[in-house]
Structures are given as structure tokens and as C-alpha cells.
């Protein structure tokens, strides 16, 4: 079931959470909503589920306008960041909740719940209470609960946000495989670009209530639409009006017309990867990512002079000066133009 959102607006008091947002999610895809906190990604997800009512705009699931439908009729599976486990119910009762609401027969419920517990590898824990599970197990239970009712679409709100790094990586891989198996249209929200690129086929980058860009991971990384996307999906240096990724800076010992002089400030070895920090003549700080071999070949030492040549520099005309944090800069090109249009729907 494809999902589309058209011209969605939502504000909380003075805070504009969604500002004329439109997205298309193709049937059967695995899409990530990516953005810093406060970018509106969770609000958008909750609006698709009906947990948030839009001020204006439409949500379509499989071509049908569901904007007026209450949550319980939208047939969506929703997984919450903090699991939202029913604490007074066992794992079995949690997973079977939606089926019981739908008045399934007891044996059917039992069969379906066990099928799902097998799928999420929680068989044997059916009689435990959520408090007796680890974070990862709770999240898998929440996923099984959402999947039990065979939802048209699966929505996950920072599903791995509360888990530690190791469990998180395992669950990522596992979610990708699960999606391949079930093939249900899935949207998940994350602020972690690596997670988004690892799991999702399609990414939607949001900032300040707007969609900045959507596309595949390669599209976003190689052809960012603006400075925000460029800095959010990877590391970036600024050289004048140009932006360049640290691995796209070539370091040489001889000057020519295309290079800029720089002094080596610090060399940090991070295993195979070496991070070399430079300062330019005008005081700009830049860093380059080298391999161990490259560093040995260049024989760089701290305090020495070297020459930098940006390889794939990009410039976004008229864009605002970059912000080192990347998150709080308003995207220049689109700013101001959208506010008037947004009330139209």
C-alpha cells in the first residue's frame, strides 16, 4: 500500500512542526524519515497514523484519503520509541491485544501470536511480563504486536533510539530482513543518518518542518540539494563558497594553481583512517580523511605546510553561511517562499 502526504501543516502553539510537507512512499518500500530533533519527522509519522491531527493537508493510504479516519480504523502498525508495552499484560497478551480487539477466536489468537513470537525470536518468553525483558526484546515484542493485526503499513518511531549500540546494529539488519520477507510498506523515523542509510531504500530528509530532499542514500550523499542535506548525511568542510567532503580533499606536498596552502595542526590516527586537521591562511579550519598508506607516503608532521586540492567541491548559490552543528541553519534557497503557499490546502 503506497502512502502519500499532501501539503501537510501542523503547529503546536507558535511552533510549526510541519510546514507544507508532501511525501510519496511507494508500495512495499522501506523509507526512512531522517532529520535532527524538532524537524517534524515524528509529527509526520504520527499524522500518518492518525495520532496527530493535521491543521491542513491530506494523508492517503493506498490512494484513499484517511485524514478523517480515527487511528483505530487506519490499519497501521505503529512501534513507539519507548516500546509502549502494556505493563500489566504478558508478552502473549501484548501481542494478542489487537486480535482480541478484533474478536478473533482463542485458538486463532494463540496460533497467530506464536507465529509472530517465532518471527521475532521471542518464543519461550510468552508468559513473561515486559518488565522481565531486555530493551531489545521489548522492542521486538512491540514489533510483533504491531504486525499481529496484519497492518497495511508499518510505522516505526525511532524504534532503536533507546537501545545500546550493539543491539541497535543487530536489530537494524534484522528489520531489513523482516521487511524483505513481509514486504509491508514501512516508514521509520530516525535521527541517525548511518542507520537510515543502512536500513532504508528511500530516505526523506527533514529539517524545521520541511522536506529538504528525498531519494536513495547515494542520491543524498552524492547530489545533496542543499547545504543542510550535505552536512546532515555526512562530514563536510567549507572552503569559501564551496563545500567538500573530507575524503574528497587531496593532500599534496607541491603547490600549483588548484591548491591552497595549509598548515598541519593535528594528526589523529583512528585505526586505518587518519584524520588530518589543517588551518588555512585565512584561519579557516579544514580536515581531510586519509588512509594510513597515504599519510606515510606524504610524510606529514604536525606544524608542516602542505597543499590541499578539493576534488568534488559543491556550491549552493546564495545559501546561508554554514553552521558547524549543521542542524540549526535555515536552508537558504527555500526559506520564505513556502509560508504563503502552506495554507492553500
Amino acid at each position, binding site marked *: 500500500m503506497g502512502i502519500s502526504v499532501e501539503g501537510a*501543516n*501542523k*503547529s*503546536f*502553539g*507558535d*511552533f*510549526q*512542526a510541519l*510546514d507544507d510537507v508532501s511525501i510519496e512512499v511507494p508500495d512495499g518500500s522501506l523509507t526512512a524519515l531522517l532529520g535532527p*530533533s*524538532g*524537524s517534524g*519527522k*515524528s*509529527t509526520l509519522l*504520527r499524522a500518518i497514523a492518525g*495520532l*496527530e*491531527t493535521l*491543521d491542513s493537508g491530506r494523508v492517503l493510504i493506498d490512494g484513499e484519503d484517511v485524514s478523517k479516519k480515527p487511528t483505530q480504523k487506519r490499519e497501521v502498525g505503529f512501534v513507539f520509541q519507548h516500546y509502549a508495552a502494556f505493563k500489566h499484560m504478558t508478552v502473549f497478551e501484548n501481542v494478542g491485544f489487537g486480535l482480541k480487539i478484533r474478536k478473533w477466536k482463542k485458538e486463532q489468537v494463540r496460533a497467530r501470536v506464536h507465529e509472530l513470537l517465532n518471527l521475532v525470536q521471542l518464543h519461550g518468553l510468552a508468559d513473561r511480563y515486559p518488565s522481565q525483558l531486555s530493551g531489545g526484546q521489548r522492542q521486538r515484542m512491540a514489533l510483533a504486536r504491531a504486525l499481529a493485526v496484519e497492518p497495511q503499513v508499518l510505522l516505526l518511531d525511532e524504534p532503536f533510539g533507546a537501545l545500546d549500540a550493539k543491539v541497535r546494529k543487530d536489530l537494524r539488519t534484522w528489520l531489513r530482513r523482516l521487511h524483505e520477507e513481509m514486504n509491508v510498506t514501512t516508514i521509520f523515523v530516525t*535521527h541517525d543518518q548511518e542507520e537510515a542509510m543502512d536500513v532504508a531504500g528511500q530516505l526523506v530528509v527533514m529539517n524545521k518542518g520541511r522536506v529538504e530532499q528525498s531519494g536513495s542514500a547515494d542520491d543524498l550523499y552524492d547530489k545533496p540539494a542543499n547545504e543542510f542535506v550535505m552536512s546532515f548525511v555526512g562530514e563536510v568542510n567549507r572552503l569559501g563558497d564551496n563545500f567538500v567532503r573530507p575524503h574528497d580533499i587531496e593532500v599534496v606536498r607541491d603547490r600549483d594553481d588548484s591548491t591552497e596552502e595549509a598548515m598541519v595542526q593535528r594528526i589523529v590516527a583512528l585505526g586505518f583512517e587518519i584524520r588530518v586537521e589543517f588551518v588555512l591562511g585565512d584561519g579557516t579550519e579544514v580536515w581531510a580523511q586519509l588512509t594510513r598508506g597515504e599519510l606515510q607516503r606524504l610524510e606529514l608532521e604536525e606544524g608542516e605546510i602542505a597543499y590541499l586540492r578539493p576534488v568534488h567541491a559543491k556550491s549552493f548559490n546564495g545559501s546561508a553561511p554554514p553552521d558547524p552543528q549543521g542542524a540549526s541553519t535555515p536552508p537558504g534557497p527555500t526559506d520564505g517562499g513556502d*509560508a504563503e503557499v*502552506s*495554507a492553500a490546502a
Partner: protein
Amino acid sequence: MEAHAAQHPAATRSRPLRLPRVGAGLGRGLVVLWLSVIVLLPLAALLDESLSQGLAHFWSQVTTPQAKSALALILVCSLIVVAINAVFGTIVAWLLVRDDFPGKSFVNAIIDLPFALPTIVASLILIELWGKNSPVGIDIALSRTAIVVALCFVTLPFVVRAVQPLLMEMDRDMEEAAASLGAGGLTVFRRIIFPNLLPGLAAGVALAFARALGEYGSVLLFAGGTKNTTVASILIGQQIESGNESGAAAISIVLLAMALVCLFLITLIQRWGTRHERAQGAGAGGLVVAAEDEERE
């Protein structure tokens, strides 16, 4: 953006609303109506009665020697009682949180006895222990000391239960840091522990004080209504019995006003108590709604 947000005043309402909007309105109407009928209407009748014969009459009723002495007596006794319980309540709370002794869970449970035991029964058992039949030979019944003892009995849990959670939450690190900086036991208590307990202690003391001001049952048999031991609530009871309703109502209003001041202080103390936690969150510029959304993200 500003103008856009203004078009949607309803957007400030946070989802999800558990009852449908009509249900919420209906429920709210019922709650307000119920509280009005049960609580507010009788109090309005009381106020009306107290003023039914004019302000001068009201004033004369609350300034009779009897009324003045009853009000002064309960005020003084309540102050003494909360001072005693502030000290002993804190000690007991401290023992329950930081100490380990046999029977601790029993003590922890028995603290609530005055909440559970009917006040008239409290009065009865106190007079048996400290009255003319006292097995230890101490007879304080029908004296002012009896008022203090009875009030100590009924208000003890307020202080203990207000201090206990604060002690439990208190970071031991702070005390250890202070000790590592050379502070002795008493200094640690005075400089570190006590200031942190103060909001809870103050709230507990205020609650205890409000309760003591109006206490009736536990004082009735034990301290009685003799010339020297008639507190405000007992005097009100006597006035009702003798048919002086407007007098009873007038003294009631004064007693009520004292309790309301106390209640107001409790609210202030609670605000003051949460000051620290608030100061941390206020940095964002006070945009509460935005902060809520931030959390959700």
C-alpha cells in the same frame, strides 16, 4: 509563520484526548457541578450564615473572650505540635530511610496508623494511657498538654511521609563529596541534608498545621471542653449544640481562613520546591509546547 499559527488556535491542544471532545465537556461539567454541590454550596451556606446578621455581629462573635481564647489556644498548640513533629518526624523518616533495625517494616507501616484510625478511637486510647486510669500514673487528661499530645498523634504521618521520599531520592554523592571536602557529620547535615529536605519538611509541616487547626475527634474526649482546654473546633461544636449557629459559623470562617492561608503556603512551598528542576528546563526560552514536541522527536 506567526500568522499561520494564529489561524489554528485549536492546534495548541495536545493530543491525544482520551474522551471525545463532547465527552470531555460533559465530564468536566459533571465534575464541576458535583464539587459545587458537595463542597462549595455548603461552604457558601456557612459564609452566608456567618454574615447573616451583619459584619458587626460577625466581629462581635469572633471577639468574645471565649472565641479569642479558643482561637489563640489552637494556634499556639498547633505551632508547638508542628515544631515537635518537625524534629521527631524527620528523625523517624531518617531512621526509616537510612537506618536498618529489626521491625523496620512494621514501624514503616504503623506510621500511617493515625491516617487509618478513627479520631475518636485515638482520643479513647490516649485517655486510657494518659488519663486518670493511666497504668504509668501520668494523668494529663483534660489539660492543655493533652491537646498537644492528641495533635502530635494525628499529625505525625504528615511530616514523616513528606520527608521520607526526599531522603530516599537524595544523592548520597552530595554527602560524600561534602565529607571528602572535610565536612563533619553535623556540618553535612546542616549544610547538605537539611537544605535539601527543607521543601518537603515545610510542606509536611504546613499540612500538619492545617490538620491540627481543625482537629476535633481526637481532642474531644482526651482534652475535652473545659475552660482551659476549649479549642476552636470544640467551641464550634458547643455553639452548635447551644443553638448559636451564627456564632459557630463566624468562628468557623476564621478557622477556615487560617487553614486557607496554610493551604496557600503549601502551594507556594511546592512551587519553590520544584524550582531547581524547573531552572534546568527553562533555558529553551519557555516555549513549553515546543519543548513537548522536542521530547516527542
